[in-house]
């Protein structure tokens, strides 16, 4: 999937991946896609909730072993 910006949140724990993602999205323009990589197992549910609550669309979630990948489209 194409993306405009990347955020490496591997090794970070709740709530840092969400806070960093929020910050990264703030620097982007509407319609741009942010790719996030994380290792926190809680981030799967958390990013879904974050997207629903903020109106930024969660385009895809992928799990590769102990790593998680998220694509979020800026509102």
């Amino acid at each position, binding site marked *: 999937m194409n993306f405009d910006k990347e955020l490496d949140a591997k*090794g*970070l*724990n*709740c*709530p*840092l991946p*969400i*806070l960093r*993602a*929020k910050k990264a999205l703030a620097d982007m323009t509407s319609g741009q896609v942010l790719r996030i990589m994380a*290792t*926190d197992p809680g981030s799967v549910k958390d990013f879904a909730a*974050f997207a629903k*609550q*903020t109106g930024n669309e969660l385009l895809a979630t992928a799990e590769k072993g102990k790593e998680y990948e998220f694509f979020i489209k800026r509102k």
Partner: protein
Amino acid sequence: MNMPVDNAALDALIRQRLDEILPQKLEEIRAAKTPSMTIIATKGTLDWAYPPFILASTAAALGWNVSIFFTFYGLNLLKKDISDLKVSPLGNPGMPMKMPFGPDWFKGINWNIPNIVQAGIPGFESVATMLMKQTIKNNGVAEIGELRGLCVEAGVEMIGCQMTVDLFGFTRDDFMPEVKEYCGAATFLPMAQQADVSLYM
């Protein structure tokens, strides 16, 4: 000229229309409102510094308006320098005592040290705090100063309890300049009344 009014029929019509219109209207009102949260932070140890700042920073990231009212020992979390916050395993049977270094079998041991021993060893709290800080680092959990900074940056309102400032002999100069105001229960309660979420920690 007065028309005869059939109140029963009118009421039935109003009820029917309300049932049709109201759910959507309420949903619109709910969607247009920015969610808000108020927290009362009452504890001043390293471990208990986390819940208010984690929830406040996350709520701010979700776009909520957040205020934290710091009272009693919670005021310690507003001090200019919070790098000296401590954690105490003494009288805290819920706290696992594990080592943040060494091989996995060693890290897995829970050291059940009796209270009377803990109390008798000078510097026990400092060592426990050092170990806790290392565990926090190992697990990619934010340092408390960083979390507080993120809260301030995100516009979380920090409010100090004036009564406790006086009670504990602090001055406003002891606290970070970002504290929005110092006030009392009568100011906090109306804020909590309007908030969607109100938590005591």
